[in-house]
């Protein structure tokens, strides 16, 4: 028997959102890509199965490329409600998205502040209620607050998407301890969204038990977006394995890795 062969095959459960199973736990945003080919390559390189898109007015003066042509058909579209400042506006955007025939999965994003782009949690709860009543699969983006998360669960959200830090800031998991509370208390997939600027930050979110991570700005603005997308995907998978391994917690004093018996100089020690 070859003792070098791994005795166990690592098995993970898929990410389940609204009854659908996904192998990849990395979600990619499609904004800010310099060109659409970079976007397509990033989707393929990362193996992501869910990408976010936005809805905007068509530019009447110049032709715009249709972004959907660069997104493989097997990838789930998650339309965000960016631009919505309140719950009724979020519902209006969601209904427009549904009319396109591209599904009814909506990332609820209700923002009233243009400097920090923080989500308006109270309007987000109202928007979740409205959208769920209207038949949408609602994935609300929120500031990590336990009471708000509980309201989102009550409203019928499919996931809760707390921010790691400000949108596009690349600051990473500044809200880690508050996300940890949601992970402990909320019985829905927690997808960390916003501010995740590097693969190590994505891995950190997965290590503490996040169900998935969404990144956009870091990938889209990298010198080689597809490379970073792949790196994010690997980091998310690595963080997931670490979480499943039930790795030990940090200690405040040393704990020797080598045995503390049988030293060569034991007789010296005994003297």
């Amino acid at each position, binding site marked *: 028997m070859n003792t070098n062969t791994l005795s166990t095959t690592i098995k993970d459960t898929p990410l389940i959102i609204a009854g659908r199973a996904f192998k990849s736990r990395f979600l990619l*945003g*499609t*904004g*800010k890509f310099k060109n659409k080919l970079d976007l397509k390559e990033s989707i393929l390189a990362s193996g992501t199965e869910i990408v*976010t898109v936005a809805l905007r007015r*068509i530019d009447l003066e110049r032709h715009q490329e249709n972004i959907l042509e660069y997104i493989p058909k097997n990838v789930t579209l998650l*339309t965000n409600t*960016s631009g919505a400042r309140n719950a009724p506006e979020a519902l209006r955007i969601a209904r*427009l998205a549904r009319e396109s025939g591209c599904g009814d999965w909506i990332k609820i994003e209700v923002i009233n502040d243009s400097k920090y782009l923080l989500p308006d949690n109270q309007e987000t709860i109202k928007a979740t209620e409205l959208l769920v009543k209207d038949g949408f699969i609602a994935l609300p983006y929120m500031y990590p607050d336990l009471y708000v998360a509980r309201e989102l669960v009550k409203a019928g959200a499919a996931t809760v998407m707390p921010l790691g830090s400000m949108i596009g800031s690349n600051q990473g998991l500044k809200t880690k301890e508050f996300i940890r509370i949601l992970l402990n208390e909320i019985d829905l997939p927690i997808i960390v969204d916003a501010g995740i600027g590097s693969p190590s930050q994505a891995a950190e979110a997965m290590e503490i038990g996040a169900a998935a991570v969404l990144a956009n*700005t870091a990938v889209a603005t990298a010198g080689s977006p597809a490379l970073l997308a792949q790196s994010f995907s690997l980091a998310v998978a690595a963080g997931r394995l670490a979480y499943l391994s039930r790795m030990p917690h940090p200690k405040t004093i040393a704990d020797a890795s080598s045995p503390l018996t049988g030293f060569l100089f034991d007789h010296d020690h005994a003297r």
Partner: protein
Amino acid sequence: MKITINGQEKEFTSSVNLKKVIEQFCKDSQHVIAEVNGTIIKSQVWPEKNLSNGDTVELVNFVGGG
């Protein structure tokens, strides 16, 4: 006849339906979504949706977003 399309006032000399307006302003109408006066109009009924003076039309499509 004046129609406001995506916030811009456009002048039309003769009566026009929504399908014609979309064909005029959108090269690729496959994933265009249209609202007239705040109501979504399904693509199947664009040809029958005649526009009137003062109507407000919103034409949207998908773009990159996070």
